[in-house]
């Protein structure tokens, strides 16, 4: 009964997402054009470097990584910041607050249907396509299980960061700048646009410790590694777990404090 309360929102989200067929189609086209840009960009980078392996990655490695990162982005990106910003600006947040459910959970589950739809419509097809085209470059085995666990935590961390950023809108009353800033930071530092291997050593050690790396770098590394040693595995998942818990707590706390601003000062 308790779970039904949330799953009903997932169900509604799926139905809702399926209503907008055209938008799904356009997203696929958009992603494809992005991938074409990436292909030529990295081809040029590798051509100018003069070697086949840059920072321990071949052109194929890099491309597979980035294609899957894009697919993962299409699947995990939540647009929570937009939703929250608009709700706060328009005052619709009042309606969300008087639902008999914690707003953080409510918004997450309202969106959760999109995960299901995007998983089957963007991530899975891309993944299968990559597997077939590269003919076995992507290992299929236990790594898929680690990947699945890692993605769940990545989603939770990503949501916490989104929710945190969305909460900032309580103070700024504007969304655009805040959202762009968040997106640039997350995409860059998570390894979604450039693999972390390409970062300078000093920067990389720092970035690897930040929560962002847990969103894209962690699951992708686990996915592409056919036989991870148990240390790396434990370290990656452990780091994700720590960020998962702490970001959840931080975003909750920040909302709790900011909610006072709404309830005390009318928002």
């Amino acid at each position, binding site marked *: 009964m308790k779970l039904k309360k949330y799953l009903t929102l997932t169900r509604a989200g799926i139905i809702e997402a399926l209503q907008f067929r055209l938008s799904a189609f356009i997203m696929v086209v958009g992603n494809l054009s992005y991938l074409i840009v990436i292909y030529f960009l990295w081809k040029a980078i590798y051509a100018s470097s003069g070697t086949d392996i840059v920072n321990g990655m071949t052109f194929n490695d890099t491309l597979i990584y980035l294609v899957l990162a894009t697919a993962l982005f299409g699947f995990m990106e939540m647009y929570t910041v937009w939703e929250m910003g608009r709700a706060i600006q328009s005052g619709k947040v009042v309606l969300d*607050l*008087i639902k008999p459910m914690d707003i953080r959970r409510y918004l997450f589950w309202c969106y959760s249907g999109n995960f299901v739809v995007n998983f089957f419509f963007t991530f899975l097809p891309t993944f299968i396509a990559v597997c077939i085209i590269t003919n076995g470059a992507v290992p299929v085995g236990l790594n898929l299980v680690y990947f699945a666990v890692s993605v769940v935590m990545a989603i939770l961390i990503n949501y916490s960061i989104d929710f945190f950023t969305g909460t900032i809108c309580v103070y700024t009353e504007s969304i655009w700048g805040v959202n762009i800033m968040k997106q640039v930071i997350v995409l860059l530092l998570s390894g979604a646009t450039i693999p972390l291997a390409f970062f300078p050593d000093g920067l990389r050690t720092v970035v690897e410790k930040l929560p962002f790396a847990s969103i894209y770098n962690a699951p992708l590394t686990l996915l592409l590694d056919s036989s991870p040693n148990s240390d790396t595995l434990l370290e990656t998942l452990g780091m994700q777990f720590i960020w998962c818990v702490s970001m959840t707590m931080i975003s909750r706390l920040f909302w709790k404090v900011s909610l006072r601003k709404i309830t005390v000062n009318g928002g």
Partner: protein
Amino acid sequence: MANIIEIKNITKEFKVLNRREGLIGSFKDLFSRNYKTVRAVDNISMTVGQGEIVGYLGPNGAGKSTTIKMMTGVLEPTSGEILVGGNVPYKNRTKNAQEIGVVFGQRSQLWWALPLIESFKILRDIYQIPEQNYKSMLELYQSLVDIEPLLHKPVRQMSLGQRTLSDILAAFLHDPKIVFLDEPTIGLDVSMKSKIRTLIHALNKEKNTTVILTTHDMGDVDALCRRIVIIDKGKMLYDNDIEHLKGFFGSYRTLKIRVDGDLKEQSGVIQGELPDMKVSADDEWISVLVDEDKAKVIDVLGQIQKSRSVRDMKLEEISTEEVIRKIYEEGVK
């Protein structure tokens, strides 16, 4: 009758930044700490019993929505006590949410892209409404309005009237103890208005739900509320039965007559004969405002008839709308 809402001396203040004019002023505002305090609700107390329909009135910006937001738990009062169904709303927001239903006339809580029935199912699950209660509620709805065609229509394709109707049904779905309706009939045509009034009335009767209704449409008030509360500038002006309201400014009635000759001229003459009353004229009628505490309408008519023949006459009761307007404009003396 148990009290479902108890409000004691609540006050709500907002801090507002004093904005300056012009480009330079706007730059200065970036660093300004120059706040002023606005008192939106000022020391209001009231109690509402289970099953009452209370009209909550006041001009724009009077503090109605602020009070409602405090009762729903979205806003925290600056001072004073508030109990809704035994809960302090802003402390137990989630628990309070289970006991109340809300319709903000300009906003919809329904799922935009989905057929209405899906919104109902979602609400059923998140409010954890038992299946048989849900079913009997839908049957009740069906008996009151023809919802069958609405159920399968996506909300975004609905007319404003249909959407408002659906929103009201959604607010009552989990059988809350109290429903707050914030301007539910705004922008609707007369037939839809009357449909919605009938619906609210029936649901209140059937489920003994307390309804707090804010509106600017006196038709809503006349049709639904026995008791009204009026606030302005955050202060409570009136809290009593609607019948009392009409006698609030003395028992005025307007006697309208038509006589031979120029009406304007005649009204001047009549004014001279009846110095205590207010006489005015338009193109069709001469109006005499009679305070029934001082003189009977029939005597006034007799007096007028002594010196001229009255061709036609009618009597107008002062309407709720006029009384309310008088209160808004002049306050309570």
